[in-house]
């Protein structure tokens, strides 16, 4: 961490991520859950910004926070009567979930700490990609060019649009 400011920002973002994700999966009201998700995603965007990936952060905010969460909200509106709580979790299931989550986390953490390298690694000075570079890489066919995945994604999106329409269509 090159500066205290950065550190503070990171700390805030990290705490926000942790806190809101926990809240998102534990809160009783589904709408609140969606809201907490929004905050988590925003905090993630902060982390992207901090790593000099401005474009990615922007996309994160626009698509995730702006698009997906709104989609969630609409879905919730459509399928839930306002003010109705989720039913309490059965305790064995809860413990099962906690166990699974902690086991996974433990394994990953084990992997993480056993390498130790990332725990306090210095952020190297980024080369500072600008948006133009990203754009040309996205449509490039050379090495490190991403035209093919880009096109594949677009077809996928198209398929999703069609699929969404077909599925949601009233029969």
């Amino acid at each position, binding site marked *: 961490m090159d500066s205290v400011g950065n550190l503070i920002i990171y700390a805030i973002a990290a705490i926000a991520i942790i806190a809101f994700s*926990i809240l998102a*999966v534990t809160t009783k009201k589904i709408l609140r859950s969606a809201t907490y998700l929004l905050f988590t995603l925003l905090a993630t965007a902060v982390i992207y910004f901090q*790593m000099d990936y401005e474009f990615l952060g922007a996309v994160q905010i626009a698509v995730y926070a702006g698009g997906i969460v709104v989609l969630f909200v609409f879905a919730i509106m459509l399928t839930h009567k306002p003010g109705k709580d989720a039913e309490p979790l059965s305790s064995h299931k809860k413990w*099962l*979930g906690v166990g699974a989550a902690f086991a*996974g*986390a433990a394994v990953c953490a084990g992997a993480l700490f056993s390498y130790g390298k990332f725990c306090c690694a210095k952020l190297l000075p980024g080369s500072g990609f600008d948006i133009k570079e990203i754009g040309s890489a996205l449509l490039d066919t050379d090495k490190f060019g991403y035209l093919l995945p880009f096109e594949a994604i677009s077809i996928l999106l198209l398929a999703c649009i069609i699929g*969404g329409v077909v599925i949601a269509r009233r029969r």
Partner: protein
Amino acid sequence: MYLIPSLIMFGCGVFGFITRKNMIAILISLELMLNSVDINFVVFNRFLYPDQLNGMFFALFAIAIAAAETAVAIAIIINVYRVAKKVDISEITKLKF
């Protein structure tokens, strides 16, 4: 360091996915997991190969796919709701047949 919140976020996602009964809540948990993975990609890219953009693009595409997937999933959920009048996953188990 950046991976720690991602790790916790992933754990929350797993927990939520397994325990919640509301399909939308499950979807939200899924988003959490995806998001944590995105962070990982970006972090690895930034720390290991700062000169390249592979991880970032991966995250970018993942976001796009997540958006698509969410859209379809929500369409399905709404449809299921229309048919079954519920979004509770524990009661919708007929798909195994």
